[in-house]
């Protein structure tokens, strides 16, 4: 009996002790270490072998490009490695003046050669860099990659001296400084990469913990697969005095519910996302943590226009008009904004709002196309991948049934099959999303050209491509935007895709994090963030 009593007390003491334990967030606030939910394991930390947002989050803490992100604005530029830059009249030739005090984390000087090396490596015809297309703005870049131009000297990258880099574009690129903020434009430590192997050699250990040489505000401290990546302050960084955090810990939490729970239990400062179903709960119980900010992304349905029936633009418009995007954004894709066109408003680019919910007109169009009240309409299916978008497709299925009288199925697949089926045009309608890489309409509009790997609709238009090329050659930024707006309008008139929502970034965020502002690109410069101790 005695022992049982003792155990009871020990247990109670343990529980009380545990209750008073400070949370991880409180501990990290003391240590100035930011805990970031980062959704999944980065594929690699080699800048030139990766493509997605997850890697971008980590890489932007380790490296810095010519131009840096601004903490409060998407369109304003901050000097990065380049102190200042200038361009010629028609935006085809850019000269970047690098700062003299920029250093690699091993103390080596950072020079224009490192940028040239990075672009050379990225564009090397034998190097399989998945995101090389981000550099195709440069003159002869694509030609060199494809082996049509043999010498890198003919590519528009020129080192004038150690601290001056000249870039020649193939067409006017007035938004180039904004683009160079993307990690594909970051420098690579030539000396470090070459010490582990040849330039085109992949998978050398140069990115391993202890080996990785970088130039950003932080250096790689530890990396455990699927568990965490931790970076700590880089004393060699030119602006180290203004870096407030001592470190950042990136946690690849794949399950959004787990992430939200961990946040509420005080294990994270900021989450990568929050499940839409939890938003009402948060609004009711913890509105102070919930952030819902516009994001540079669009949700849409892809249409395979080679299918009978779907090849008729009236049918596509009818389907589009029968989607109640207002209701979807209120109840399913919470925080999203009903899309009025495919591309969202980006800087000076403001696409004409053409998309409306109009069941009346939708029925009329469908009848005009030969399917009055949906009679005789082929039985098509909406392709989705796994659990993602199941609710959404069920809602659209019900809307089409209600407003148009047509029945569609939902076809579920694993991710690889989903991609493959779209590439092979073996689908009818598919649920999809697109996130832009930089603030310019090209990031949304280029994919709908003929033969583009992301098009997959069977649709293309000569007029559309003519408009895009007209814009590309236009040196007048304002004029350029007007042409893009025309192209966007044309895309919406033909409607090979049915956009219904502009994405939002819904996530949880701890109030102790300071210096974090809403940004369309969601690239919060890590060096401006600080932690304030809270009770």
């Amino acid at each position, binding site marked *: 009996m005695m022992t049982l009593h003792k155990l009871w007390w020990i247990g109670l003491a343990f529980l009380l002790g*545990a209750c008073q334990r400070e949370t991880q967030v409180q501990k990290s606030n003391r240590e100035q270490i930011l805990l970031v939910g980062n959704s999944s394991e980065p594929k690699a930390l080699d800048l030139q072998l990766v493509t997605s947002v997850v890697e971008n989050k980590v890489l932007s803490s380790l490296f810095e490009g010519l131009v840096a992100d601004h903490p409060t604005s998407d369109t304003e530029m901050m000097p990065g490695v380049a102190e200042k830059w200038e361009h010629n009249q028609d935006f085809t030739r850019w000269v970047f003046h690098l700062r003299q005090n920029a250093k690699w984390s091993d103390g080596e000087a950072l020079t224009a050669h490192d940028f040239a090396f990075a672009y050379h490596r990225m564009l090397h015809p034998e190097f399989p860099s998945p995101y090389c297309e981000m550099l195709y703005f440069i003159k002869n870049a694509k030609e060199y990659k494809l082996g049509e131009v043999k010498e890198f000297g003919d590519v528009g990258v020129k080192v004038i001296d150690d601290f001056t880099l000249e870039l020649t574009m193939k067409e006017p690129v007035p938004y180039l400084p904004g683009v160079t903020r993307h990690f594909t434009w970051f420098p690579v430590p030539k000396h470090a990469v070459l010490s582990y192997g040849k330039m085109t050699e992949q998978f050398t250990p140069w990115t391993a913990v202890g080996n990785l040489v970088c130039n950003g505000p932080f250096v790689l401290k530890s990396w455990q*697969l699927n568990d965490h990546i931790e970076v700590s302050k880089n004393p060699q960084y030119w602006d180290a005095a203004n870096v407030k955090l001592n470190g950042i810990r990136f946690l690849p939490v794949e399950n959004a519910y787990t992430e939200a729970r961990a946040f509420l239990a005080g294990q994270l400062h900021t989450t990568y996302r929050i499940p839409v179903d939890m938003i009402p709960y948060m609004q009711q119980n913890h509105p102070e943590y919930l952030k819902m900010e516009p994001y540079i992304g669009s949700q849409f349905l892809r249409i395979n226009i080679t299918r009978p029936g779907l090849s008729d633009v009236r049918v596509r418009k009818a389907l589009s008009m029968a989607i109640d995007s207002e209701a979807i954004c209120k109840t399913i894709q919470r925080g999203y904004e009903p899309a009025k066109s495919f591309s969202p408003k980006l800087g000076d680019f403001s696409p004409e709002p053409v998309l409306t919910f109009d069941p009346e007109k939708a029925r009329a169009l469908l009848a005009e196309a030969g399917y009055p009240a949906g009679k005789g309409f082929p039985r098509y299916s909406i392709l989705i991948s796994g659990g993602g978008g199941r609710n959404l497709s069920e809602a659209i299925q019900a809307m089409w049934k209600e407003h148009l009288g047509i029945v569609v199925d939902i076809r579920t697949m694993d991710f690889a099959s989903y991609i493959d089926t779209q590439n092979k045009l073996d689908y009818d309608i598919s649920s999809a999303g697109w996130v832009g890489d930089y603030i310019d309409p090209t990031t949304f509009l280029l994919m709908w050209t003929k033969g583009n790997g992301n098009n997959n609709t069977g649709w293309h238009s000569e007029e559309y491509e003519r408009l895009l090329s007209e814009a590309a050659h236009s040196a007048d930024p304002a004029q350029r935007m007007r042409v893009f707006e025309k192209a966007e309008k044309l895309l919406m008139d033909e409607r090979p895709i049915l956009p219904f929502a502009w994405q939002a970034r819904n996530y949880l965020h701890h109030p102790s994090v300071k210096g974090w502002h809403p940004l369309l690109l969601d690239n919060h410069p890590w060096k401006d963030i600080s932690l304030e101790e809270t009770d």
Partner: protein
Amino acid sequence: MFQKLFHRLLQGIVVLIVLFTITFFLCRALPGGPFVSEKALPEHVKALMMERDGYNKPVYEQYFMRLGNLMRGDAGLSTRLSGRPVNDVIAQSFPVSFQLGCISMLLALVVGIPAGVIAAWKKNMSIDFIVMTLAMLGLCLPSFVVGPILAEMVGRRWKLLPAMGWEPTNVITWLLPMVTLGMVYAAYLARLTRSGMLDVLSQDFVRTARAKGVPMHRILIKHCLRGGLVPAAAYLGPAFAGIISGSLVIELVFQIPGLGRHFVKAIETNDVNVIMGIVLLYGGLVVLGNILSDFLILWLNPRARAQS
């Protein structure tokens, strides 16, 4: 005995080669090819990658190349993790899965077997009813429901244990995943043990022993437990292989860096080398687990031993 073990190990190698062959061709049949990504890869880049990983060679050549590499202990490079060696992926995540699996299995054995024995002993009495209802609930409430509830209550509301995360040396991070995972296996073991015990308890020697006045707990432990554990032992082999090679749901719910997440991600993205590596590891564990469990059955069951 040793000869038998040796034979089983030899057979195990054959099993692994057959498994390798089948899985290899299954992987090759997966739609989408090896480099599936959300944003389409440029054609020439894809071609470079195909060449790099030998996908443009004839299939039989790829097969023998991989088989040869595996024999040398090299499982190749992961395509999804941009060239990280599969050996490294497994070396980082298998210890975690192994640790979690072992402690969960331990919990399952410690809870499940006594519960089954007690239920069999007190057959059709209220304690039997209660134990079996609990065991069934353990099976009916899937880990993806129990895990989040535990994490929400214990982790978030009462702040007793972390809601997610895994530290190999920190016991408090083990508890919730261990309970969630172990519970299911405990339930299986309890049910199987109860049924096995009942089979033995109805045999003649038990009657004789009871008639002689041997106390019940002695009969149970000394005479019945061995025979009664046969069904549980047959189940344990594959169960053990399964539990230590990673459980996706537990790993996702508690954010544990185990093998299960790598495996499912690899399948999603057709990362053939990772799939093959993990399948072979798991296959090897199944072979070992089944050998252990078969020897356990022989040991538990003198009759079967006599005939072999």
